């Protein structure tokens, strides 16, 4: 089935064209304005595409644009990707809006638009090689920024190179072995490693903290918050991997979630604290995706949306604080509440939304995720609750460190400006709105979860390496779609 309008194609082409135009603008103020325009247009297109898809009631919809048709079925959306596209565009738009004048010389608006186009292209693509190629391309922009700023690149390069190589190698073996059969370790293991690297699973997580250390906060935020690692897992791993692989990823992610939440408690600098909070939530999403039951998977897809939105807001709040005070130490109190009360409220709101606080977008998702995790991992699924509890403590501890504990004296006004207020209030409205009306999101996510499970067809016996192939148990086999 086709979408009514070529909005998907436009959503990708507009920022792509925007990147070319903005790169030629020398004035940073003008570049920002143009960037805002292109991001806004892309966001409008993605919202339109989501509504269009919703009204079609289709499982998959193709873009009717000329370019899309010439590329075959390269651009298409389904229940999984439909809300992820506007979410990603919104994160980019809000980041561009909330970029302060003091930072616009450092922040690459052309690079942001290019990154947006690539991110939307990844999410619109279901072709495995297309996803792999686009994700590989997406790794380049942060590298170029690190190089341009004279920062160390080795940690990032090593991890991303390993990610691209393992992903490509794994999928190559999958295709060589045939899609509809149980796969050998040669295919499954590289894919498992690739997913763990991209999501920041232990022990492959250090590149995330390193990126936050050295890249601009905005770039790191935009590269990570759309959670492309989870997308790789859903598109490339969940449909073909045997149950033991998914459970292994789930267990590693469970450990990562608790570990990262604990590490967030002992961090002495705000960016590193944020990076561990991100890692913990990224791992929690992966835990849900690997539970292989509709409730856990629905929870993961809900937490994916809520965590991406909340983490973006949380990160933007920290970024706004950094713009005023420089890098923020968590070893002493800053006491800036009286200067920026709205930022303080936003910090708490987005932080609590991340940890699934009642009344926020993340609440129901977390509840479903815990339920699903306990179903699949009866004895250790409770670790999700421990991770959420530790994250909650870390968020409040950071809040107290940054906003309270002393009286900050400043000779210049530090209140947030109109643009930042707009970004903050938009996020607050979405976080609270999603918390009050979760039924607008959750059933659609459940539908997407059932579709993902229905793609896990029982494989034919491989017979290649008996010791290295895994069996699909009856428990994991999804019911036939109605």
């Amino acid at each position: 089935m086709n979408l009514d309008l070529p909005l998907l194609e436009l959503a990708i082409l507009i920022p792509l064209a925007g990147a070319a135009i903005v790169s030629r603008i020398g004035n940073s103020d003008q570049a920002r304005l143009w960037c805002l325009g292109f991001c806004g247009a892309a966001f409008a297109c993605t919202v339109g595409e989501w509504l269009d898809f919703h009204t079609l009631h289709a499982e998959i919809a193709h873009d009717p644009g000329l370019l899309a048709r010439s590329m075959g079925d390269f651009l298409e959306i389904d229940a999984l990707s439909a809300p992820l596209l506007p979410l990603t565009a919104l994160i980019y738009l809000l980041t561009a809006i909330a970029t302060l004048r003091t930072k616009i010389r450092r922040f690459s608006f052309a690079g942001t638009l290019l990154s947006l186009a690539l991110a939307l292209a990844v999410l619109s693509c279901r072709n495995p090689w297309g996803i792999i190629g686009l994700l590989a391309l997406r790794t380049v922009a942060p590298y170029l920024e690190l190089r341009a700023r004279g920062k160390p690149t080795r940690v990032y390069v090593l991890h991303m190179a390993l990610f691209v190589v393992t992903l490509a190698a794994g999928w190559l073996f999958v295709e060589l072995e045939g899609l509809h059969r149980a796969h050998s370790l040669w295919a499954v293991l590289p894919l498992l490693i690739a997913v763990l690297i991209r999501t920041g699973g232990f022990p492959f997580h250090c590149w995330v903290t390193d990126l936050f250390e050295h890249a601009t906060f905005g770039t790191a935020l935009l590269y990570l918050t759309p959670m492309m690692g989870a997308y790789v897992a859903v598109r490339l791993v969940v449909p073909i991997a045997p149950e033991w692989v998914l459970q292994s990823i789930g267990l590693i992610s469970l450990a990562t979630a608790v570990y990262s939440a604990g590490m967030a408690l002992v961090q002495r600098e705000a960016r590193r604290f944020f990076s561990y909070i991100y890692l913990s939530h990224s791992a929690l999403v992966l835990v849900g995706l690997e539970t292989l039951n509709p409730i856990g998977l629905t929870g993961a897809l809900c937490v994916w949306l809520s965590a991406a939105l909340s983490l973006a807001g949380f990160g933007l709040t920290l970024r706004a604080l950094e713009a005023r005070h420089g890098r923020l130490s968590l070893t002493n109190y800053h006491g800036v509440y009286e200067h920026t009360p709205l930022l303080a409220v936003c910090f708490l709101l987005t932080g609590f939304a991340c940890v699934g606080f009642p009344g926020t977008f993340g609440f129901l998702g977390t509840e479903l995720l815990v339920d699903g995790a306990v179903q699949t991992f009866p004895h250790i699924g409770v670790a999700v609750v421990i991770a959420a509890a530790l994250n909650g403590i870390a968020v409040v501890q950071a809040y107290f460190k940054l906003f309270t504990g002393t009286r900050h004296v400043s000779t210049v006004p530090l209140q947030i400006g109109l643009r930042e207020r707009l970004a903050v209030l938009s996020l607050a409205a979405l976080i609270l709105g999603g918390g009050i009306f979760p039924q607008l999101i959750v059933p659609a996510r459940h539908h997407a979860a059932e579709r993902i499970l229905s793609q896990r067809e029982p494989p034919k016996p491989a017979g290649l390496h008996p010791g290295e192939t895994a069996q699909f148990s009856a428990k994991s086999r999804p019911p036939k779609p109605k």
Partner: protein
Amino acid sequence: MPFMFHAIALTPLNLLGLTVVAVPVLLVAALGLPFLYGRPLSERWIGRIVQSGMIVGLLASLGVLGLMLAQGTRSVTLDLGHWVSLPHFHFAFKFVFDRLSVPFAILSFVLCGTIGAFANKYLHREPGFARFFMQYALFVMGMIFTSLAGTIESLFFGWELVGVSSAMLVAFFHERTAPVRNGLRVWIVYRISDAALLVAAVVLHHLRGEGDFSALMGIYPWPESHTVLTGNEPLIIGLLLLVAAAGKSALVPFSGWLPRAMEGPTPSSAVFYGALSVHLGAYLLLRVSPLLDASPTLSALVLILGLVSAMFGALASRAQTDVKCALAFASLTQVGLIVAEIGAGLPRYIPLVHILGHACLRTLQFLRASSVLTDFRQLENAIGSRLPPFSSPLGRFVPAALRVPLYRLAVQRGYLDALLFEYIARPVLGLFRLCDSLERRWTDFLSGGQSRESDRALGAASTLDDLSL
């Protein structure tokens, strides 16, 4: 199901019930939205809104009680439908008005209304006036949702709101370090309590497929309900709920946060830690009391925990040097006794009446605490001589050899905080700090030099300081 709300029959009882639930929500919206949009309300308007809300809420809850008594109804369920309904997972939004929840809701409105009026004068021209009432509104909402919850998820919703508003109010005077540290301590204990409650909710979902209390305690109204769980199920769920209750009510070993909570302004100390919040654990145990009836082991544990907490509270309250802390431990003594009454299986109305009476008395004492010295002087002037020093008659029965260790134990508040920090927090944080240093070595190795740019932003102190004594 695309949308959640059921069509509710517009009976007077349902309308009044809806009002009771809606008032705190509207209060939060009325105080919160102007702040978010950069138009904070004046003190006068905040006072008026709070007063109106509390009066309407109280009248509505009294109306519910009156109608239930007039109609002879034992229990009214206000079913707002499923918040989310998926195959094998229902999240119902349901409130129950019965002989337990209605008195508790009335108590909440009476005490919160009193404290609202008191705080309106007490915090006049305080810089955090609006912030106090915002957190107060969240607290009221949490209390009402917890009191009336018909499902464990609705209860969890209210439970968390009470937790966060309480922790923020402990840190109300946030330009000083001590209140902030104490607020964090309270929050940590509350998170443990919340985690236990969430796990209990998940286990209940697992066993029954839904979180309704009716699935847990059958269809009969409180206190005649009987649990439908069998085997070890009541013990497992009951233990989790006991941990949640112990955290919220500051029972042993979580009692350390109670004196720390006194850092907040007196109105919040009075209503939260002296009267309402500290009774929530006992309220939860009363709500799930059929589980205790079904499990003698659980009942025995509740009884022991209550008695130990009561004895500890009685001991510690005698050695405190400030009146708010002494009152806090006196509260703990009574809460311990209430829990012991629940564990001992006394008729359920006894602990309920005990809660209502104790909450009102303690609120009065807390509100008078700031003028206790003036009261003493007035009394001494009236009688024309000094008041005799107070000494407990029980002291005579304590052997001389035990007096100093017991005094030390009381002054140090049972070393509970120190023990929790020494044997739980420090090893856990130490482990993560070790991991952090190993990660530093690993990234230094990979990048071939110093990998942490953030070190430049750091001061000399350590984040561990906040979690230490």
